[in-house]
């Protein structure tokens, strides 16, 4: 889609206008008013009426609006809505930014349950506190403290998260690799994987749902947790 702004100003005046407001799209000079007269009309004192015309590639006008008074001018949101409505099938819709949570660090508190296999499957509780920091749009890293009372009351892990943003920038689907050390019970190295989804409820808080598995020495655990996260603006 091409945006062309048209006034009866000279190119020199338009250049000053563009420089003052940092405008990068074309400001066209309709100095004799012929184009303004054909599309939007002019007032009795020969000023162009503000207006918007949306034209399909085949030359057909699909939307026309003329502001006969100052208050009739379309707001930016109204203009975007009109463009979406009339050209929406030929271009992507404007991205919903949600709470723009993608660039925020998260301190997560998760709790849930699962099962541990140490000869036989037995139920257990599971939980974690983790702090993850975004490195770009698709990657996060951070420390994680895991809690699972049956075979790993505490695990000290690092977490590497791959994510795909959803709902604009307000949430993500995630796959995570967790690896670290379990100092007690199933003592030794541990490794695991997680899949999850989260969504920002506000600029400060999000909800997440995760499922995964973890291996602590000779035992295996599967679990599902739900939790909240504090979102922290870091830049």
């Amino acid at each position, binding site marked *: *889609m*091409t*945006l*062309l*702004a*048209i*006034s*009866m*100003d000279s*190119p020199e*005046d*338009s*250049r*000053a*206008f*563009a420089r*003052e407001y940092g405008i990068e799209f*074309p*400001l*066209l*000079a*309709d100095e004799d008013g*012929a*184009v*303004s007269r*054909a*599309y*939007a009309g002019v007032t009795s004192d020969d*000023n*162009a*009426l*503000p*207006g*918007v*015309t*949306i*034209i*399909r*590639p*085949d*030359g*057909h*006008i*699909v*939307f*026309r*609006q*003329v*502001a*006969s008074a100052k208050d*009739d001018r*379309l707001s930016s949101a*109204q*203009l975007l*809505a*009109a*463009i979406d409505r009339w*050209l929406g099938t*030929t*271009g992507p819709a404007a991205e919903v930014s949600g709470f723009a949570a993608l660039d925020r660090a998260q301190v997560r508190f998760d709790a849930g349950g699962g099962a541990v296999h140490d000869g036989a499957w037995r139920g257990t509780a599971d939980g974690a506190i983790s702090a993850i920091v975004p490195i770009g749009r698709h990657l996060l890293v951070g420390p994680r403290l895991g809690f699972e009372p049956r075979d790993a009351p505490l695990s000290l892990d690092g977490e590497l998260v791959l994510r795909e943003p959803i709902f604009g920038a307000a949430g993500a689907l995630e796959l995570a690799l967790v690896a670290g050390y379990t100092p007690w019970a199933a003592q030794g190295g541990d490794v695991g994987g997680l899949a999850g989804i989260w969504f920002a409820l506000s600029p400060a808080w999000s909800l997440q749902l995760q499922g995964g598995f973890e291996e602590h020495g000779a035992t295996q655990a599967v679990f599902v947790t739900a939790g909240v996260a504090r979102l922290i603006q870091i830049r």
Partner: protein
Amino acid sequence: MVALHVTTPATVTDTAAPFTLRAQDGHPVTLATELARGPVVLVFYRGYW
């Protein structure tokens, strides 16, 4: 629902009038050339004052 003040009802039978106008950098811009690349939105404004 956003209310729009449409004072001139447009229909898809209206065809855009051709024009060529100079941009702020002095280069001519032709509507037909821009339409060859995709849809065009014209915004008429009062100018710089």
